[in-house]
């Protein structure tokens, strides 16, 4: 008796599996999960984009009202309209610098953002930039319900990372163990077909239906969520490849377990254990280990340090200002004015000093954050569940690295604004002090508000984003190959007695 060809077995299995209600139930549930995840993430991101637009409009409104006031305060003083206080006067360069220079740094969502929530529910996409806020901006966030943050969002990445393997494993466990549980495995074993060819053909048949259905579901879900597919063809294609490799990785694990032809109960128990290990156990263990070895710098101690440094600066204020003015060739001749400077002008010297004194803590916090990102990236190779989630976030533009670059750009933007405004504020020290009584309502040492630069951030191109996830994609392909080969080799004999 000659063994049936793999092709014949595959065609027979393919037809058989295609008629399985279980297959289509799982595909429909996954499609619904993908759509729900992508839609709710798109909804959230649309709300955030609307908030960014409001912030932009708010900036424009402030610029317009500042210009309006600057014109109005050129008027002569009357009995009803007196001299405007310096902190209300945009024509006073010092008051302008502290109370009228406020711009937003905005991080828009990328077109493929519904692919993964990433850090978009946790990290701010809008930072208020003022000249004298140490290190660019205050610690801030957009409030989200903490219950939702703790549970995690049901986003597209969750559906792929967590639910897709469960669907696939359930399908494999129930379709491949059918004969074993019905007591028919002996009959199959009695035929001229080896376990490798038999299990392999059925697994291939399952994947032949499952893979295109899942990939199509992914495209449909993202299209329904409003992703402009044409614009994001390249990263979308890479995300599809990643999903494909992720399916192959889990099918390799399924093959490895099912190679010994267990019952459905035993297979599901084993799958449950592997799934829990990869999704919960190992991330928890590695995270706990990392937290023990490299604990985060204390935010509470940072608050303490800020307060101490500010007190020190207050106590040393006059000496620091005298020293700062004395060290500047253009201001040295005016060092006697160090103790009579207004609040905003003082800040232009003192805030950089606050930053200098707090920089060790700040650098430690930033370094820790970068280290944690690197560890998470490396751990992604050990835990494909984490790796694929991170890769999706990178393609979606919701990854921690883009967030960090945005925050760096926000800080650089503040420096840019300071470079425009501080010299004008400090130049006033060299000019004669303002007379106690003047003719105009405004000080008019800044006749018109400055035309300050807009925030801009250098975005990584699609090619760079793709390049960043390629190492993981290759690794996942390797893992999928290794697990599949291991499973194939393991299915070397019928487990019937």
């Amino acid at each position: 008796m000659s063994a049936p060809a793999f092709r014949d077995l595959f065609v027979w299995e393919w037809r058989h599996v295609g008629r399985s209600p279980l297959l289509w139930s799982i595909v429909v549930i996954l499609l619904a999960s993908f759509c729900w995840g992508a839609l709710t993430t798109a909804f959230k991101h649309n709300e955030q984009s609307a908030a960014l637009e409001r912030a932009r409009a708010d900036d424009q409104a402030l610029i317009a009202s500042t210009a309006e006031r600057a014109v109005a305060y050129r008027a002569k003083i009357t009995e009803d309209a007196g001299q405007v206080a310096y902190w209300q006067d945009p024509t006073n360069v010092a008051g302008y610098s502290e109370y009228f220079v406020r711009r937003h740094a905005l991080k828009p969502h990328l077109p493929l953002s519904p692919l993964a929530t990433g850090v978009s529910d946790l990290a701010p996409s809008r930072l208020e930039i003022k000249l004298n806020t140490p290190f660019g901006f205050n610690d801030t966030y957009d409030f989200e319900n903490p219950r939702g943050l703790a549970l995690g969002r049901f986003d597209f990445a969750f559906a792929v990372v967590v639910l897709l393997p469960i669907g696939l494993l359930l399908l494999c466990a129930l379709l491949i163990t059918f004969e074993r549980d019905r007591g028919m495995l002996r009959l199959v074993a009695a035929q001229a077909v080896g376990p490798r060819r038999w299990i392999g053909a059925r697994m291939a048949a399952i994947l032949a239906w499952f893979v295109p259905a899942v990939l199509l579901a992914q495209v449909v879900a993202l299209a329904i969520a409003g992703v402009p597919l044409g614009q994001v063809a390249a990263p979308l294609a890479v995300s599809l490849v990643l999903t494909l490799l992720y399916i192959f990785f889990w099918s390799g694990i399924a093959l490895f377990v099912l190679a010994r032809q267990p019952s459905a109960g035993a297979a599901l128990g084993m799958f449950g254990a592997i799934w829990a290990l990869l999704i919960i156990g190992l991330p928890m263990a590695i995270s706990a280990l990392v937290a023990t070895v490299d604990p985060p710098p204390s935010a509470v101690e940072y608050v303490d340090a800020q307060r101490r440094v500010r007190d020190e600066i207050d106590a040393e204020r006059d000496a620091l200002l005298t020293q700062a003015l004395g060290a500047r060739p253009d201001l040295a001749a005016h060092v006697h004015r160090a103790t009579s400077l207004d609040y905003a002008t003082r800040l232009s010297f003192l805030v950089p000093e606050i930053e200098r004194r707090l920089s060790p803590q700040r650098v430690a916090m930033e370094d820790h954050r970068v280290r944690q990102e690197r560890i998470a990236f490396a751990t992604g190779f050990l835990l494909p569940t984490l790796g694929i989630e991170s890769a999706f976030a990178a393609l979606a533009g919701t990854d921690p690295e883009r967030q960090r670059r945005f925050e760096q750009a926000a800080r650089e933007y503040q420096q840019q604004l300071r470079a425009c405004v501080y010299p004008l504020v400090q130049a006033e020290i060299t000019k004669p002090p303002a007379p106690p009584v003047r003719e105009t309502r405004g000080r008019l040492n800044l006749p018109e508000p400055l035309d300050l630069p807009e925030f801009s951030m250098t975005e990584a191109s699609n090619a760079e984003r793709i390049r960043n996830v390629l190492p993981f994609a290759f690794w996942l392909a390797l893992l999928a190959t290794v697990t599949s080969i291991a499973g194939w080799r393991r299915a070397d004999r019928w487990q019937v007695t």
Partner: protein
Amino acid sequence: MILPLLHLEIAMLRRDRRAWWSLLALAIVVVLSCVSIAVDNVRVDASKQQVAAAERQRWLGQGEKDPHSAAHYSIFAFKRAPALSALDPGGNPFLGQTVYLEAHHQNDMLYRPQQNASPLQRIGFASPAALIAGVAPLVVFLLAFTLVAQERERGTTRLALGAAIHPSMLVVIKMLAVWASTAGLLVLPVAVVTVGQLAFTGQLDRDALLRVLAWSATFAGYLAVLAAIGIAISLRASNARLAMTTLFGVWIAFSLALPRAASTFVDTAQPLPSSQSIRQQMASEAPAFWSDEQGQRNKQELLARYGVSSLEEIPNPRMAELDLMERHSHEVFDRILGPFYDQVERQDRWFALLGFVSPTIAIQAGSAALAGTDFSHHRHFIDTAERYRRDLVNRMNADGMAHRAHGSERHTNDERLWSQIPEFVYAAPRLGTPAMPAWPAFGALLVWLGIAASVLTITARELRP
């Protein structure tokens, strides 16, 4: 009669190494997560206490200054980890730990522990409550499957039913065996660890003990629901394969898909206004630095309020204006932030109501409420800190208003005034004190218990030797 049989069933469970070792592994992970969170809380709380004491000293020692400047200097208030957060940190990792209580601003609470969490830190964070709610169903079902479906497959159930035992007794014993094993290994140890931690840190009072008991009882009830469902499905399924598949499906639905889906649904159906629009509204209606035009309106209001025709007749017009704007800001903050926080609580109430869809949702909502780590407890801290801030700022402004200061004159004060402000001390609300949005979750759990008991009873009645 029951005890020896129970003992026997537990012994049978222990013989199945796969199921029993899964339970033991989960129990170890649950205890480790509890200890890890408790140790971290103790460390961070000690640091908070230390810095809070330093803040008090800084406040008292700030020297002589204008009282309004003192109100700007103010203090940072720190929120200690809730007593039971080692059992269930709830939303605390995503909530700020400290708030700056300065004049003119109701600031956000800052420095959320998970603010800059890497993806690994975020997915790797697990608490006893999250593990028991999410993973225990799988283990409970595995135990129930082992005790019922496999026995039935082997034919031993038929033998047992044939012996002179009433079928319902057999079912109850099996359910009790699964429940006792899981509750004993998953809930009891962490409850003991938490009581020990509370005693060690001097937080063990009647309320904390009551909360631990209520939390443990609620989780024991949850495990009873799961055990009953597991046993009933295993008994009713026509074969072991179908039983395992159904149990697997129930676990996925109850514990993995529905909680996240429900949470996302609630947050999407009843979205919060963005913080950006809230802050923008607050800043435009109650600015910390107001325009000259607003200053003119303030002047008219002060003249009317004091019944005078000139600011010269007001002892300290600058401070009076600051007080006017400060009190105006209180009204604005209450009007804008109040409904915002109400909406957060409304979302939580809806989530708790969805506990009728899955017992895991019910336990997740109920657990955080009992542990004092849900948003309603956090809001209690926010409100307490804000009341303290307003009292402090009002007191400072009042001192300024009581002293004459015109033109370049400045009234100052010193430690005699600063020490009149009591130290900020926060006492968490007692169990049941805040309007807990999670109440529907407890109703849902009771309904689930009723359903599970009914299904088990019907299944037991239908069981024939």
